[in-house]
C-alpha cells in the first residue's frame, strides 16, 4: 500500500470540489441583486463518481462550474438567497468533515511511521 492511497486522493479531490462549490455559491449570493444573473452550481460528486468508475487519475479531475438556465424570479435573478445560504452552510460543514477525516488519516500514518504529530 502506498503512503498516499486512493482514499487520501479522493478526500483531497473532494475538498477541491467543495472549495469550487463554495466559490460558486458565494458568487450567487454576491449577485443576488444583479439583474440578469443566472445562478451557478458545481456538481462535483457525480463527476467524481464517474471519474472513479472510469479509473481516471483523481488528481487530474477538473470540475465544471455550470450556469443554471433557470427562469429569473421577480427580482431579476434566479438566485434565492435563503437557498444559497443553506447550501453554503451545508457545503462548509461538508468541507470541514472532509478536512477532519483527512487529518485523522494523517495522524494514523504519522503514528505508524513513528512521527509524533
Amino acid at each position, binding site marked *: 500500500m502506498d503512503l498516499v492511497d486512493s482514499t487520501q486522493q479522493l478526500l483531497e479531490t473532494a*475538498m*477541491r470540489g467543495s*472549495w*469550487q462549490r*463554495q*466559490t*460558486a*455559491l*458565494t*458568487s450567487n*449570493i*454576491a*449577485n*443576488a*441583486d*444583479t*439583474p440578469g*444573473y443566472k445562478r*451557478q452550481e458545481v456538481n462535483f460528486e457525480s463527476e467524481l463518481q464517474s471519474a472513479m468508475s472510469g479509473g481516471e487519475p483523481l488528481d487530474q479531475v477538473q470540475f465544471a462550474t455550470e450556469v443554471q438556465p433557470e427562469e429569473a424570479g421577480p427580482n431579476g435573478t434566479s438566485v434565492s*438567497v435563503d437557498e*444559497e*445560504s443553506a447550501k*453554503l*452552510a451545508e*457545503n*462548509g460543514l461538508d*468541507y*470541514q468533515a472532509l*478536512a*477532519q477525516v*483527512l*487529518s485523522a488519516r*494523517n495522524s494514523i500514518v504519522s503514528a505508524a511511521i513513528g512521527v509524533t*504529530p
Partner: protein
Amino acid sequence: MGLFEAIGIAGSGLTAERVRMDVTAENLANADTTKAAGGLPYQRQEVELKQAGEEGFSSALSGAIKQAESGPPAGGVEVTGVVSDATPDQQVYDPGSPEADAQGYVKMPNISTVTEMTDLISESQSYQSDVTAMQTAKSMFTATLGVLK
C-alpha cells in the same frame, strides 16, 4: 482557483450593498428636496449592478491584464454606475408653499419613502448574507490549516 477568491467575491458583494445603502440613504434624506441641481426637484438615484468578469474574450483579456489592479474578482459583483430614476416628479397641491406654481401645485421628488425603506431592508439582508458567506470561507480556511497540525 485562488485560495482567497471566495473572500474577495463576498467582499465585492459587501461593497456593492454598501453603495446601494448609501444611495438609499441619499434618496431618503432628499425625499422633500424641491431644489436640487438646476433648481429642479431632486431625482431618485438608483445603483446599477453587473456581474464582474463576465464571460467573453475581451473581458477575459482585460480581466487578465487588470488582475493586479484592484477591482472585484471574476464571479463577484461590481457597481457600474448610479443613474437617475426617470419617473416623473410628484405634484402636490399646497397653495401656501412659496414653491407653488400658479395653480397651487408644488413639484416634489419622485421618491416613495416606503419603497426606499423596503429597499434598505433587502440591502441590509443581502449584506448579512455576504458576511455569512465570508465567515463560512474563513472557517473552511481554518479547517484546511487544521490538516497541517
